[in-house]
């Protein structure tokens, strides 16, 4: 059995959820944009396909719920680390019920479920950056201090540092992990500032990969058997300059994934799946 904090990026399962038609009109978004649901679904299907066939993960697909327009963004409903799953209390009122289905799915995967019951706490999974050694929780419009505290309580092994999210919806809107000890970060000033804070707050050293586009910094890293480092990132059509940066990662298997539609409702690549490592727990 793997020891504490071993195997960052090892995943066996992924939980995803379908896109409801309500997404087009009702999903929350920071800037007005028309979303083509059909296009979004095609995008999403391609995304899930990559997880399932290309990467060989066991994909648990939850049905879309029309009453939850944002339900495709499963990342926000829970934080899973090791065999513990913290069911969040999303900051957006309209999204609170998204956690129900997620909780069921995670239970079925035999994870230890921790629920965030505190009425004063809010936390979106998109604000939680797990680096393999510690958590950074972005304090944003969706996530508050109390939510971060509960997360810290749920994952006692790890340091949980709070960082301000000055711009963008979530912390992971402009950063994510690109490998063990590698933080992919957008080049905007707020993003860089946030990175500085994270570096200051951490006992560990992180390399950074700065991409020109903040949104391109949201990518999905995995470390899979027989595949090694895998990085799902934006497509050249969307962010050509940033892709050039990703292409410098020689050790990574790079998988460009289109995200043109979902991004209109503030959805990043990480948002669309909940990755789980079941092997870690026997």
């Amino acid at each position: 059995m793997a020891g504490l904090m071993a195997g960052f990026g090892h995943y066996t399962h992924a939980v995803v959820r379908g896109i409801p038609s309500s997404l087009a009109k009702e999903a929350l978004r920071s800037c007005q944009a028309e979303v083509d649901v059909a296009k979004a679904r095609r995008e999403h299907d391609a995304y899930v396909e990559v997880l399932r066939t290309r990467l060989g993960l066991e994909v648990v697909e939850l049905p879309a719920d029309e009453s939850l327009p944002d339900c495709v963004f499963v990342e926000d409903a829970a934080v899973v680390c090791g065999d513990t799953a913290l069911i969040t209390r999303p900051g957006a009122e309209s999204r609170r019920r998204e956690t129900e289905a997620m909780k069921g799915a995670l239970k079925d995967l035999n994870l230890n479920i921790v629920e965030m019951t505190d009425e004063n706490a809010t936390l979106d999974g998109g604000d939680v950056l797990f680096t393999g050694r510690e958590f950074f929780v972005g304090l944003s419009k969706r996530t508050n201090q109390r939510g971060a505290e509960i997360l810290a309580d749920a994952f006692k092994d790890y340091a949980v540092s709070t960082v301000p999210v000055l711009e963008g919806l979530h912390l992971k809107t402009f950063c994510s992990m690109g490998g063990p000890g590698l933080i992919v970060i957008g080049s905007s000033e707020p993003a860089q500032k946030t990175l500085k804070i994270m570096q200051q707050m951490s006992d560990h050293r992180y390399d950074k990969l700065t991409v020109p586009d903040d949104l391109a910094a949201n990518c999905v890293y995995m470390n899979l058997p027989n595949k090694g480092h895998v990085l799902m990132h934006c497509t050249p059509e969307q962010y050509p300059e940033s892709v050039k940066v990703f292409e410098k990662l020689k050790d990574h298997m790079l998988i460009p994934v289109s995200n043109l539609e979902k991004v209109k409702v503030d959805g990043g690549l990480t948002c669309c799946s909940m990755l789980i490592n079941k092997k870690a727990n026997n």
Partner: protein
Amino acid sequence: MTTEAGSETEVKEKAEESAAQPDQSEKASEETKEVANAEGEEKEKEKEKEGKEGKGISRYLPTWLKKQKSQSQTSPTKEAPPTEEPVAKVTQEEEGPAPEVNGQAEEVEEKEEVKSEQVKEKEAESHSNTSADTEPAKEEKVDESTEKSPEETKKEATEGEGAEEEKKKEQEGEKEAKEGGGEEGQTSIFQSPLRLVRKNKMKLVVCHVTLLDGTDFSCEVEKRAKGQFLFFKVCEHLNLLEKDYFGLTYMDSHEEKCWLDPTKEIKRQIRSNNWQFAFNVKFYPPDPSLLTEDITRYLLCLQLREDVASGRLPCSFVTHALLGSYTLQAEFGDHEPDQPRPLDYIGQATFAPNQNKEMEEKILELHKSHRGMTPAQADAQFLENAKKLSMYGVDLHHAKDSEGVDIMLGVCANGLLVYKDRLRINRFAWPKILKISYKRNNFYIKIRPGETEQFESTVGFKLQNHRSAKRLWKVCVENHSFFRLNAPEPPTKARFLTLGSKFRYSGRTQAQTRLASSLIDRPAPNFERTSSKRISRSLDGAPVISITEATAENGREPHLELQSDSKSPGCSGLPQSPLRVHGDNIYVRHSNLMLEDHDKTQEEVLKHQASISQLKRSFMEAPPPSPPQPNQWEKRLTSSPATSIRIQQQQVSLEEEIASVLFSRHSAAGFYSADETDCSVPEATLDAVICSASATVCSSSSSPQKLLISSTISAAEVVEPQTEAAPADNTISDTKEPAKTTEVEIEETVVVQEVSRVAKPGVVTVTAGLPAAEQETRKQEVRVVEEEVMLKEEVKPTKQESVSSESESEEEAEYHPNMPIAQIPEEKEEEEEQEEMKKKEEVEEDVSVPDAPSIPAEEETNRAEDDVKKIETEESTDDPMVTPDEAPNGVLPPEEGLAAPTLEKEEPKVNGEASLVEAEPRPQVICCSEPPVVKTEMVTISDTFAAQKTEIATKEVPIVHTETKTITYEAAQLDGNGDGEPGVLMTAQTITSESLCTTTTTHITKTLKGGLSETRIEKRIVITGDCDIDHDQALAQAIKEAKEQHPDMSVTRVVVHKETELADEED
């Protein structure tokens, strides 16, 4: 004989005080020597004086002054009739309470040394020089017999012997410590305690040490043993070589856990008769796999198991289970399916704070997967996992941020962590921290400016009380030293009259201990694991365990190390490095290494102490400063901040300071105490006549309550500095702008500096007529002083940048984790200065006043140094307190009372002027100003948000903390001629008690005008406290005392400056 009586009381008081100061460090005793020296001299001179001067004022004169006079008049005075001494000694002995015998004896011994010095017996001199090292008992006795009347001799001799023996023992103890440090010296370590016990006439005390496996280890130690003696005994018992990661703890009187300082006497630390200790990990190695020996890892495991079980080291369910399973594997070996599961054991054992069946089952389940793992491997795995826990090695302290929000400060290998609840909200890595300091219950760190920032920032936290602030500070100092330095900060050449705790980490750093352990060359020692004691049934390596048990006894014997390798293989199932070759040479080398290190320190400390005593003496003997010399003072004054940089590197701790203060007060009068920190007696403060400080100190000082009393000789004088000071205060309050405040301070400092430059001629020289040896020493000191001066000069231009501040009391201290930026440039200046000074020395005849007073300047600079950006608001108190009754430690004003007037008197004489003695101080209240309100700002960046918006932060957090009131009582007088004549900073004294802190500073200014010499003495008494202070009483008391002390002077002006904290959230 009046004098005799005086000394008697002195002695008595001293004894009492020493008894009352359980906190004194070992060094205190050493300092005592110096004091004793001074005392001895003093007494002699006093007596002579008696003969010459008879009665009158001389009664009030401080002994040292009298002595001085006598010296200048008759240089041979030095040769004191030996017969006089014994009387004092006798009284001393007789009056010393039984338990204090040790201390007394030592003092006596010291006195003898002094005398021999004075008499200039060659033998004696050599003795005194070498005594610290060689302790020639015979010589000692000879001295005694020559000097003592027959009846006394016997007693004295025994006493002396006792002292000697004790000293010897101490030395042995030290040696042991060193050897212990050198690991291989264990044989001797082992033996010496026994020897001690045999020889010992001293009282032995049984210490109980709770070991990490929960067992109790008791051993006898001599009552005056130092912490390291006990620690080494424990390590020896544990057969532990990599001991630097560990330490002993005790519970203080407030039920708080404290680390036993190895360099200080145990007795003085524990403060009670509870000789109960615990052996604990003090520094958690970030990577336990780098430890050399399994036994070390095992002990670390034990500590961590305890940490985990108690919840101190929080971890998740899975981690609890995982760690528990490794514990099982290490203790029981492989899981045996056929055997009944050791669930009972698991049930008994605690693996987690909220352990349940589920966890126990998980533990067992995981245990199965560890099959084949040796205990050592299991321990290693345990540690590999434990070390990754975020709270591993983090020492948490409760605190509040500037807004009164509860936070936790965590000290660890990498720096300082700030937590709010469980969340890390900020982190200050050691390299980012320029200075760590505490003042009363405030703890400050000064942060190196970031790439984009221009200024350093200071972050302040409030702790529950000053004890916790100090404890936190100490932990920081130690952790920084251990993990960040290659070697502990070397003690500076001379520790000069600084204030504040000089506590430094005294052990080996991690780098050193790693090096040392890489040299460990013994066969892996056998040791017994906890459970194997409890459970006979063996598991995995059944044979292994039995062997372990069989050899366990040997294993504990220190001689084990010397055993041949053949014994060890196979023992205990610990992996043995085949490369290990038993080599005595290596051991020896190793221990030598340690010894060297230690010796140096010791020597330096001694040297330094000698120099202090010399300094004191020279100060006392020096004719009062002639007009230019005041500038000298100023120079030093201003220079001191720089000094502090060095001084702070001392290992000497506060308690020592305190001790010496107490002693010195009796003997040396106020001067010595100037550099001392903590006397906690308000009364004393007021009494301390010769206390001094620059006005700047006051004006800039944020201390909440100031009671300024200036007494002036013969109308004439304006208390210039003071006047300056008050406005400064006002300025602060008015402007509300931190930046401005700082500026004000700086300006003042600069002024001072200029003055001092003008005054170049005023140089520190050695007075003729002192014993040669003394002269030499003094010269050394002088040099040091010069350095300080140069430092200061460097400091000034750079202003805030490199200025280090100095603390003013036990309640504050600071530490510079990084070398001051300016240090290198300073070096150059130092040299220049030195040359200059040398020249001056030649020219100068007068001995200028030594350095005691220099300290306040540091404060000054301290203030100035506060970044423009951040101003630390001091928490202020309600009332000035001068209530003598409140003084925890009884004080004896008599001496001090004597001291001051003399000074004044003398000065005129030196100038060749008759002193204008006008009796009758008549304070008249003239004005009473409206209470201005000081609005100060404390900017605390306790989380990253604030850090981010730096610019805003300053404006955003304006918190009105204090109310300030200044009342000036002024006598009608000519105020005109305060032409900026720089005053002489005579002394500064800070007395601190639990609830209040009193700082008395005296500024003496002399002006020579139209043939008239005027001496102005400005006393500044700053009283700060947490509780109510009757300030009226304080004022009355202060005035009264001022009058008493300077009967020939009139009080012309009294300024009461009150600062009250308006909204003190905590307290």
